């Protein structure tokens, strides 16, 4: 790995990759399994999804049934992926890359890109970048880092790097570096990759040898992008995550885990109160709510709802959360609940009405009806609605509809 100070063009993009993030996340949590044959099963616990090198050496492959896998390797340890754990480590990777650049993109779980342009003053050598990134990643995740002048080259470099190591590809060597790479990694749909194979093209070098216009004539715009990528000139930029508006987050650990929906609702109601009491949320309106729960077995359930209009009223926010929970199908007893109020805005963000007095009266009426509904179980007010105003029998023309603000 060259460590001399490279030119800016050769280190525009860094890619941090953890092949088999789900498997490695589990291995980090179980140090005793180091060096043992391990396989990750699917949710139904019927087939193998990922395997360690030790398991592969014993003939275990992804897609096998667990019965066949254990038949081939009786000492095989079978683990089940915990989506909450994987999400936690995926977030840690993003944080690690955020240490070297403010522009970070998570293209998929376990693959994170960072735009390194402008960071050469802070991290003059590639080794400095590697050290800064790996400082935030558990070594047992076996992180691989690729640094290059373009996105695709950085990705391939990361995939070729040894665990906990970095590969830097200078711009002038990118085409040669990619030449032997299988076309399967190119940014093209699976059908197009298959089509290339049928045409006898199996490496990036063979693909890049065609004239660009010929590739674009056959594969369109995407083909042109893939052609540039295969030459080490991938034009796709790093697309950083959208700017996150201010938010408040409340987390509650449940021990013992919450089982009944009533218990979840009680916990959530308390959390909402705490979230709204946070100084950051005082006198603010909420535009987005997010509820995320983890089960005791590590399964993840998450819902996000953008509110039709910003809400600052606890009662109305609670109605939204309660509805969310009442219709939710949780994957098991809940051990961790995270409530988030996002997109916080000032009250001035609310559009004023020309009919302020009417609006005020309407709000007063709505508030009164809500109280009465809680008191009596149903709204005592109704609206007249037209049903079949043309009907010759009067009782079919109009009806009363419960007024439920």
């Amino acid at each position, binding site marked *: 790995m060259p460590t001399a100070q490279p030119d800016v063009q050769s280190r525009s993009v860094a890619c941090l990759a953890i092949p088999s993030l789900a498997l490695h996340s589990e291995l980090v949590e179980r140090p005793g399994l180091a060096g043992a044959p391990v396989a990750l099963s699917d949710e139904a616990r019927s087939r193998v999804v990922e395997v360690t090198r030790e398991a592969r050496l014993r003939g275990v492959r992804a897609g096998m049934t667990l019965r066949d896998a254990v038949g081939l390797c009786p000492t095989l340890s079978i683990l089940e992926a915990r989506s909450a754990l994987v999400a936690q480590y995926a977030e840690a990777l993003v944080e690690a890359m955020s240490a070297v650049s403010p522009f970070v993109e998570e293209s998929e779980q376990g693959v994170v890109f960072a735009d390194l342009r402008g960071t050469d003053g802070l991290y003059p050598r590639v080794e400095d970048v590697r050290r800064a990134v790996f400082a935030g990643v558990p070594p047992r995740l076996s992180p691989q880092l690729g640094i290059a002048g373009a996105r695709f080259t950085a990705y391939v470099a990361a995939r070729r790097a040894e665990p906990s190591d970095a590969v830097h590809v200078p711009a002038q060597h990118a085409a040669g570096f990619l030449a032997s790479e299988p076309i399967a990694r190119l940014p093209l749909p699976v059908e197009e990759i298959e089509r290339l194979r049928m045409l006898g093209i199996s490496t990036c070098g063979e693909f890049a040898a065609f004239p660009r216009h010929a590739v674009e004539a056959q594969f369109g715009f995407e083909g042109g992008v893939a052609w540039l990528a295969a030459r080490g000139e991938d034009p796709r930029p790093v697309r950083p995550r959208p700017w996150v508006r201010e938010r408040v987050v409340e987390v509650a650990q449940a021990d013992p885990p919450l089982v*009944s*929906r*009533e218990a979840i609702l009680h916990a959530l109601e308390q959390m909402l109160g705490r979230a709204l009491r946070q100084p950051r949320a005082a006198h603010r309106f909420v535009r987005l709510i997010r509820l995320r729960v983890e089960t005791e077995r590590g399964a993840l359930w998450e819902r996000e709802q953008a509110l039709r209009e910003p809400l600052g009223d606890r009662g109305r926010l609670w109605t939204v959360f309660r509805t969310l929970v*009442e*219709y939710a199908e949780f994957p098991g007893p809940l051990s961790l609940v995270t409530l988030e109020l996002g997109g916080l805005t000032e009250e001035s963000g609310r559009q004023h009405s020309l009919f302020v007095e009417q609006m005020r009266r309407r709000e007063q009426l709505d508030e009164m009806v809500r109280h009465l509904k809680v008191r009596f179980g149903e709204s005592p007010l*109704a609206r*007249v*609605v037209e*049903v079949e*105003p*043309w*009907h*010759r*029998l*009067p*009782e*079919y*023309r*109009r*009806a*009363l*509809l*419960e007024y439920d603000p």
Partner: protein
Amino acid sequence: MRPSIARPSLRPIGLPRPVGVRVDRDSLPRALVRTDARGNRGVEARVESVEEIWRVAEAWWREAAQARTYYRVILEGGRPSTLFRDDDSGAWFEQPYSAALR
């Protein structure tokens, strides 16, 4: 907790109320007696005149067809009312009636 099953929330307006009606030899209403919600009979109100009679037959092609003969009447004291006789059962009802929107 399973989501509660929503109750039908539409309640029709202008349902006919059963009334007792005394008729003359031509089967025209001559007096009506209203009954309150508890079934108590009120005072008999005399029909001074029958202003208009019309028939409404709805869904005559169905088994549960509805055929009514409406009478717009003036009660003693000059108060108007609309009564109808269910042509099927012969029962009398009072119901406010206005022309339907077209």
